[in-house]
């Protein structure tokens, strides 16, 4: 600022010749139209930028986010339900498999038991047959042995009688031995 008269005149009563303020610049009436004009311009610009661009955009973003969060929560809930269902299905399948396995085991057991029974019966029969055969053989052997004992006894008796000097015929000896064996 210079001290030219025209400036002083233009500045009016608000600014002194050194460019300093006289009193409160807030009360300088010369500047008020300028301030009011530019303030109104500024407010109109801010209002239009806010109401046409900024505020709808931010509102949309916030609504979007709210929607996304709600959707995500719903999806999470759905997935949770699915997980519960899957667990139930798994448990059911497990129980079914257990039942099935039990059935198979029982069937197998029954079959084995049947085979076993059949085998046992067959073995029993064979054993019985073998035992009967053995019994017969033993009886035969016993009879044979008894006959042999009787024969040996007769021969020995005849020899003994002969050796002792007795004179007995074979028929008598045989009768005596037979009587003795029976007794």
């Amino acid at each position, binding site marked *: *600022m*210079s001290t030219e008269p025209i*400036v002083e005149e*233009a500045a009016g009563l*608000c*600014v*002194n010749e*050194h*460019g*300093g*303020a*006289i*009193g*409160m*610049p*807030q*009360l*300088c009436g*010369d*500047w*008020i*139209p*300028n*301030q*009011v*004009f*530019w*303030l*109104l*311009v*500024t*407010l109109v*610009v*801010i*209002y239009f*930028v*806010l*109401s046409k*661009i*900024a*505020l709808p*955009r*931010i*509102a*949309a*973003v*916030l609504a*979007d*986010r709210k929607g*996304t969060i709600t959707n995500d929560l719903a999806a999470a809930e759905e997935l949770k339900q699915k997980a519960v269902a899957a667990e139930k299905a798994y448990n059911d399948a497990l129980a079914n498999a257990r039942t099935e396995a039990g059935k198979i085991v029982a069937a197998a057991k029954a079959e084995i038991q049947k085979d076993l029974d059949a085998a046992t019966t067959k073995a029993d029969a064979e054993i019985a047959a073998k035992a009967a055969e053995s019994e017969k053989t033993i009886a035969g052997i016993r009879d044979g042995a008894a006959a042999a004992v009787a024969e040996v006894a007769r021969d020995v008796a005849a020899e003994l009688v002969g050796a002792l000097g007795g004179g007995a015929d074979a028929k008598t000896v045989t009768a005596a031995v037979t009587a003795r064996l029976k007794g």
Partner: protein
Amino acid sequence: MATEEHGSGLAIHPMDQFIVKPLFGDGPIHWYTPTNVTLWMGIAILAMIALLVLSTRRRAIVPSRGQSVAEMFYGFIHKLVEDVAGHEGLKFFPYVMTLFMFVFLSNILGLIPMSFTTTSHIAVTAVLALMVFLTVTLVGFYRKGLGFLSMFWVSSAPLILRPILAVIELISYFVRPLSHSVRLGGNMMAGHAVIKVFAGFAGAMGVASVLPIAAIAAVYGLELLVASVQAYVFTILTCVYLRDAVGDAHH
């Protein structure tokens, strides 16, 4: 004030920062002249665009830092309008947001050294307050007709007191724009003038100027608080007044 000390060693001009100057040349200031008022209001517009428009251009679901700030401003004022002025008051949300963003950004930008604080001028704050006053009055009469006048007739008071209260209410109603504007302008002007006075001391005290510089730092912090709080107070009072116009019951 400043002029009285002129010529002495201690030259403090705390009010010079409020002088309106033309941006180009030294000519007279007409209503259309681009001045430092124009410059700093323009910067406020640019700051608002950067804060609320550029930062939200990606419309991200997961917001960036800038977008978070924009959403915070939006949420803060939206909730303020809804809580104070009521659900009906949300129609005026862009209007209130305009006032808040302008006052807040002008206050904050005014704290930049060498800047010009547009809201420290009573002419500016008076226009803002008168706009609120006229809006409330016109909207009140438009929505409620003569019923709007019932807010001056305190029906809960004894009948004999009502005329007296009506006069008091009427006076307080018309004082609103004055208190509304002077509160903001006065706060802004006082803080800046104090900082400037301390700065003047700092220039004249030599080594001891550490003290005023520390004081400037402290006052500057306080002024940041004042700048935000005054913007908030201006906005919340606007909402309180708007409730008279759009709300159902008074008090």
